């Protein structure tokens, strides 16, 4: 790097720093500051009533899939899904009964990767192409994945998708800030870790007009997720398997 370039880049960096407070004024929402000593542990609480009252709203799904270059496949059996709607019956078939509230029972449930405390997908992956970070996010390395699909077999929640064919052919307008994938690899929700590093909330949470999705830090006793988990009774999917999902549902 020559001197001129160095000066230019330093200038640009300084400009960025200066612009930061101004940008923050316009930011929709961001993650509250936390004690640097506390370990962060991300979690999500979904309020099913709020979500279902919004009817056919799929803003969160669109926001996520757009931000992450999730392709729209023609064949339903080859769909790639990071976050999607599933019937209550299929989501909680071990926790339903015929006398549940009709709206709840027949209404859709938003499902995604549960970012389990004990993720079976991580346990089975033969190449560590998927792993759990210290903040609880179950991550994927699309460049290391060999496409054996063992993680899909091991996941009790159907949260993982495989690229049966080239996904790039099914992207209308690829988003430049996020990588696209190749055929033959597994992908799933990464809890917007790329947005979290920019201090932004996950795309689905930010997009939800009903405020049905609450994201936060379980390590912080005053966080909105901890408040909700304390004040409301919540469900988790297949709690008996010991995976400890970190997506909670208020019913």
């Amino acid at each position, binding site marked *: 790097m020559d001197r001129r370039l160095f000066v230019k880049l330093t200038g640009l960096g300084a400009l960025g720093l200066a612009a930061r407070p101004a940008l923050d004024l316009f930011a929709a929402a961001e993650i509250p500051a936390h004690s640097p000593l506390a370990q962060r542990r991300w979690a999500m609480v979904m309020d099913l009533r709020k979500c279902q009252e919004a009817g056919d709203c799929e803003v969160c799904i669109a926001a996520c899939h757009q931000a992450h270059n999730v392709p729209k496949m023609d*064949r339903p*059996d*080859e*769909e790639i899904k990071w976050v999607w709607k*599933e019937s209550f*019956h*299929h*989501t909680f*078939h*071990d926790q339903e009964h015929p006398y549940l509230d009709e709206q709840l029972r027949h209404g859709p449930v938003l499902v995604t990767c549960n970012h389990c405390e004990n993720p*079976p997908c991580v*346990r*089975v*992956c*033969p*190449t*560590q*192409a998927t792993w759990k970070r210290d903040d609880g996010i179950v991550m994927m390395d699309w460049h*290391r*994945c*060999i*496409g*054996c*699909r*063992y993680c*899909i*077999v*091991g*996941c*009790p*929640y*159907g949260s993982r*998708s*495989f*690229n*049966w*064919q*080239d996904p790039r052919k099914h992207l209308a307008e690829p988003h430049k800030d996020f990588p696209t994938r*190749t*055929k*033959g*690899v*597994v992908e799933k929700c990464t809890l917007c870790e790329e947005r979290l590093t920019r201090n932004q909330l996950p795309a689905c949470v930010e997009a939800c007009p009903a405020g049905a999705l609450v994201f936060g830090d379980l390590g912080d006793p005053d966080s909105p997720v901890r408040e909700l988990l304390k004040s409301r009774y919540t469900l988790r999917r297949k709690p008996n*398997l*010991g*995976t400890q999902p970190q997506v909670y549902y208020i019913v």
Partner: protein
Amino acid sequence: MLEKALYGDRKYWTWLAALGAVGLMGVLFYFYQFANGLTVTGLSRDVTWGFYIAQFTFLVGVAASAVMVVLPYYLHHYKAFGKMAILGEFLAISAVLMCMLFIFADMGQPFRIMNMFLHPTLHSMMFWDTIALSGYLVLNVVISRATLSAERKGLPPAGWVKPLIYLSIPWAVSIHTVTAFLYAGLAARPFWMTAILAPRFLASAFASGPSLLILLALILRRVANYDVGKEAIQKLAVIVAYAMSVNVFFVLMEIFTAAYSNIPEHLLHFEYLFFGLEGKSALVPWMWTSEILAVLTLILLINPKTRAKEGLLGLACAMVFVAIWIDKGMGMVVTGFVPSTMGLVNEYFPTLPEIGITLGIYALGALLVSLLYKIALGVRRSLV
């Protein structure tokens, strides 16, 4: 020693050419799959493993079953298996290689296969299965080569071979145990999460593998004038009879536990397998075929009179092979996915490219068996 494979009559070369042609067809289908992705298979979001993994699981059993001739011959000095042991070892080599090819065919990113070794992952059963299978392959190659070349020189096998042979016995058990662990440790799939899966895999392996060996021995007697001896065949038939009985017993254990406990997530899989779910019943005729064949083979094999007749024995062995191929292959693998973890009932049907690749791999396996048997028989002949 290897040059023995190069001397054969017209029939031999025609046979090899036919197998080579089928293998080539498989390779061409594989290129098609490689270019387009696994979308050319019948696999889907819900059924993510299918025909390839079914063949893999079945063939691990065939590979492991070599121990059923190796153990009596080397450990108990059961001399009647003298001509059979090498056939078992060579069959094991071919079966393990076919297993590896099926895994390769199933991979979404086959060129990244070295990631398995670059990032060895001790908590993944797939890593251990790779170790078990590669180790078993090496053991069998070394052992069969050492014993055969010693035999050619008219000497007993070198001293260092013995410990390897003893090691290969538990190792054979391990390959099928670890293959069962691929399935049996998954909380997500109640159909497979049963402690009896590994014992059941071993029982079905010790029925299907020796059945194939008996068939091969009967064929070799006709086409190559190589007789392993009536006693060896009959002894192996007894092993098949016991193993098949234990296998059927284990299957009944499974069905009892699921049916009597009446836990839906266990029972639904068996319902799908034997009666169909939500009007979807692709596997039902196959499974009933498998069960009927199993019962018939038990009648033929347990009865000493029918077992002693080699014609009937051959028929029974073919039936055992088919029954277990259905039950342990598609029946075991696909049913784990139906219903899915979400409770969805979506079926799976293998496609033409999948069947083409599968036939190709089997043809390459048969080609290798033929070459290896040619070598073994050639060495034996030159001794006489």
